[in-house]
């Protein structure tokens, strides 16, 4: 796929709008985090969302999370589909009474004038079978395009959320394509600098990666090794959960790993429909174990951790 920067604009370039979102949510009292350093399918997996949804302490956080969906890879040939993309994630617990107004305020910092566009809240029930989580809310449409998901979490890791957190997920590429008026993701203006001055667009940064990772995901990922990695991650997660006290955070890392390995195997088409359910169930069991362990840990109880005894 060829691409060419349509125009360079410091005010609407990709990185500026991400910074705007970060600033906006920081101003609303969110802890602004950096991406979690693991492969995940969605920003929801970040422990700052999943684990922090549990327990009754106040928690407000915002962060960008690279998300990997191996089955959505198109070898860089589709202007709308990517196997690696960015989500911007907000979690506010308890959900604020003016949650919808706060969200609409964030669209304005992206340059979407609410008087000049048609913004709607369209029913969307959210469920993550692998996380044992569900919630109710909407997908947000801007002039007919889904730009965000807005969810009141009811349960995570099989545990009822009390108080209830608000989760917002913005698909950054799609949203910013809309703001910039670009039809090809690879032509997104990344930095607001014209090409002849060395400015970059999305394709400069990611096209080759999309091609190579599509080939990896669909053709080269060694399925036997992936099956083994899945088992290893599952075993390690269980091992960590069986410690006294359980090590909930490292165990959750292994759960995320198992979940992503499952996605890779799914992309290779080596998991049948019936096996699929079984694998999802195995990840869910781990997620539930981690959620329970976290709920029982100092972080889950809203306490400072005590010094840990170290065996030398």
């Amino acid at each position, binding site marked *: 796929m060829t691409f060419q920067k349509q125009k360079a604009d410091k005010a609407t370039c990709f990185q500026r709008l991400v910074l705007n979102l970060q600033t906006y949510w920081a101003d609303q009292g969110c802890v602004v985090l950096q991406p979690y350093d693991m492969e995940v399918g969605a920003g929801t997996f970040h422990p700052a969302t999943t684990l922090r949804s549990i327990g009754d302490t106040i928690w407000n956080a915002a962060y960008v999370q690279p998300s990997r969906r191996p089955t959505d890879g198109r070898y860089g040939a589709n202007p*709308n589909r990517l196997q690696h993309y960015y989500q911007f994630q907000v979690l506010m617990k*308890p959900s604020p009474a003016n949650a919808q107004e706060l969200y609409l305020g964030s669209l304005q910092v992206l340059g979407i004038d609410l008087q000049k566009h048609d913004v*709607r809240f*369209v029913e969307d029930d959210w469920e993550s079978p692998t996380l044992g989580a569900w919630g109710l809310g909407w997908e947000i449409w801007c002039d007919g395009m889904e730009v965000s998901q807005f969810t009141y979490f009811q349960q995570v890791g099989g545990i009822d959320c009390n108080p209830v957190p608000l989760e917002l997920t913005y698909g950054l590429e799609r949203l910013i394509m809309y703001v910039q008026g670009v039809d090809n993701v690879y032509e997104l203006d990344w930095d607001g600098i014209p090409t002849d001055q060395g400015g970059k667009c999305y394709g400069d940064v990611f096209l080759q990666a999309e091609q190579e990772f599509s080939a990896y995901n669909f053709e080269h990922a060694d399925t036997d090794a992936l099956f083994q990695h899945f088992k290893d991650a599952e075993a390690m997660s269980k091992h960590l959960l069986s410690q006294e006290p359980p090590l909930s955070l490292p165990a959750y890392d292994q759960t995320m790993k198992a979940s992503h390995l499952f996605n890779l195997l799914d992309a290779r088409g080596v998991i049948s429909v019936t096996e699929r359910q079984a694998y999802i169930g195995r990840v869910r069991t781990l997620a539930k174990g981690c959620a329970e362990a976290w709920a029982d840990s100092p972080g889950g109880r809203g306490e400072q951790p005590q010094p840990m005894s170290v065996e030398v």
Partner: protein
Amino acid sequence: MSATETLLIDLFSEEIPARMQKGAANDLAKSIADALKGEGLKIGATTVWFAPRHIALRIADIPTSQEDRSEERRGPREGAPEQAVAGFLSANGLASLDDAELRETPKGNFYFAVQHIKGQQTIDLLPGLIEKAIRDFTWPKSMRWGRGSFRWVRPLHRVAALFGSHVVPGQLDLGNGESIVFGRETEGHRFSGNGVIALTDPSSFEDQLRDASVVVNQTERADAILAGARKAAEDVGCTLIEDAGLLSEVTGLVEWPTIVRGQIPDRFMAVPKEVLVLSMKEHQKYFALQQADGSLAPYFITVADGKREAETFARIAGGNERVLAARLSDAEFFWNQDRKDTLNSRVPALSSIVFHAKLGTVGDRIDRMAPLAAWLSSYIKGADRDAARSAARLSKADLTTGMVGEFPELQGVMGAYYAAHDGEDGAVAQAISEHYSPLGPNDDCPSAPLSVAVALADKIDALVGFWRIDEKPTGSKDPFALRRAALGVVRLLVENDIRVPLINAFREAEMLYGGESDISADLLGFMADRMKVTLKDRGLRHDWIAAVFESGSSMDDDLVRVTKRVEALRDFVGTDSGADLLAGYRRAANILRAEAKKAKGGLELGSVDAGLFEEPAEKALHAALAGSKAGEYLAAEDFSGTFGELAKLRAPIDGFFEGVMVNADVAAIRENRLALLSQFLGSVDSVVRLSALEG
């Protein structure tokens, strides 16, 4: 005549899913009306409104107070023991018998406690019953929010409750110390309104919201959308493809509808129209348009929400056009890619798609469906055996295409397009397209011979398969949609007048699974149940159907014949002969049942001995039974003739009951008469089991 007032309730919340709004408004109306009636209050005209953020109700002419009433309880007799008197006094809160009334009754003089209860003010009753009504909403799915424990469909923000111009002084407890105090405030349009508005009185509700850019009246919104969409279509020389379901959904998505028309780029018009319509309607909630010649027009209509400037609508149209174009370019890509491979070449890949762990792959399924469709074709006029086999074999091949992967709803439909592209016969393509049908009682039922053959094979294979592994529907659980499949078989056979002996069809399907088992009778019983549902819509009662299915020694497995027999039965039970015969049948059955009960170990009756007859009426009935040709008419499928024969038994059975005492003194004579009655029942039952009839 006491004073009355009007009640207004407006529940203001975050956006309620469109499909739930109407039910919620009606629930609220019923709940409040029932509660008012329960308090002895009359109600007048009721109006409900629903919009994305409003569920509202107005009830006129409610008395401002309950009527005074008195309650009385009878106490002890005059002069009753002291203990009884004391108990009566304390139970009714009376100081002495002076506070009670002594009254004469036909049974003597009794004390009565009479309490005059002053009617309560309605406005004092309303807070409790409104709160209860809000709590009692039944949502398909509900949620909590913030720190509260209260559950609703989405966060509820305001409860406006006016009785006349007064605020009802109540509140809704949300749990954990949070509550919503009833007031007169609600909110207008999110983007075109002016924030909070204070409702003055119930009569101005609609107008005040309209001033705040909310058309709260759902009928008005729907009418405006329909009229606007029709006009927008006419403006470009097209007509709107009307869709009541979509209209009702869109009405639930907007508070101030404005019609926006967008264009579909010409290059996408080459994509099958089902893809275009699906993308527009299901995914984007757009209306489609058609041109004068009936073809799909390159436009769509969407309904935006709010008052905007004209140039804004052009921008909104442009945005929607881009979204649709992005979706359609995906579809166009699949359309071009998919046609590079023939359906035939895709068949082997079906062997890697699991249908069900115990029933094999989709490849296994078409390997069974193809010969089954061929077998079925011999019962279907105009269905070619080889064509049926090859249509069934290709029927699922589109599951491996990119288009069906992206738009699973288009399975079958896309297969037909690809088959046509491959140069397959038109009837084969049509059969691929229609073989999943009918999808329910109101769905179109295929009638083309080849379509019927493949559709039947699809459903019979699934039913037999799931019956063999004992995965039958139970209660509300029917994960494999087997009720729908059975209903499909019934409709395909009955509506197309196809005479397939189902037991044989089940056996044929079972052989393809590897051998016969014992499921046939049970599965046929399941079909009979589905048939009761279908035929009910044709005015045929379920007990008539049961009477036909339960007649004779084995169930009739030809559903077309069953239907004709049920229709003949309907005609028969409507006649005097039918009614009289039924009466005689029931009388005979009652006598035999009573005798069987008396006989403890059960009634053992031998065959009828003509030598033991004493009365002419016995002989007449016996002769009538012997001469009845009902069985022959039944075998010849002359069903009105069959019932004509049954009608001939009416006079003899009536005569029997008039002229014969069943309970003769001589046991042998009595038993012979019982045996004759039993023979009568048996001969009726062989044609129709009248005992199954109700009422």
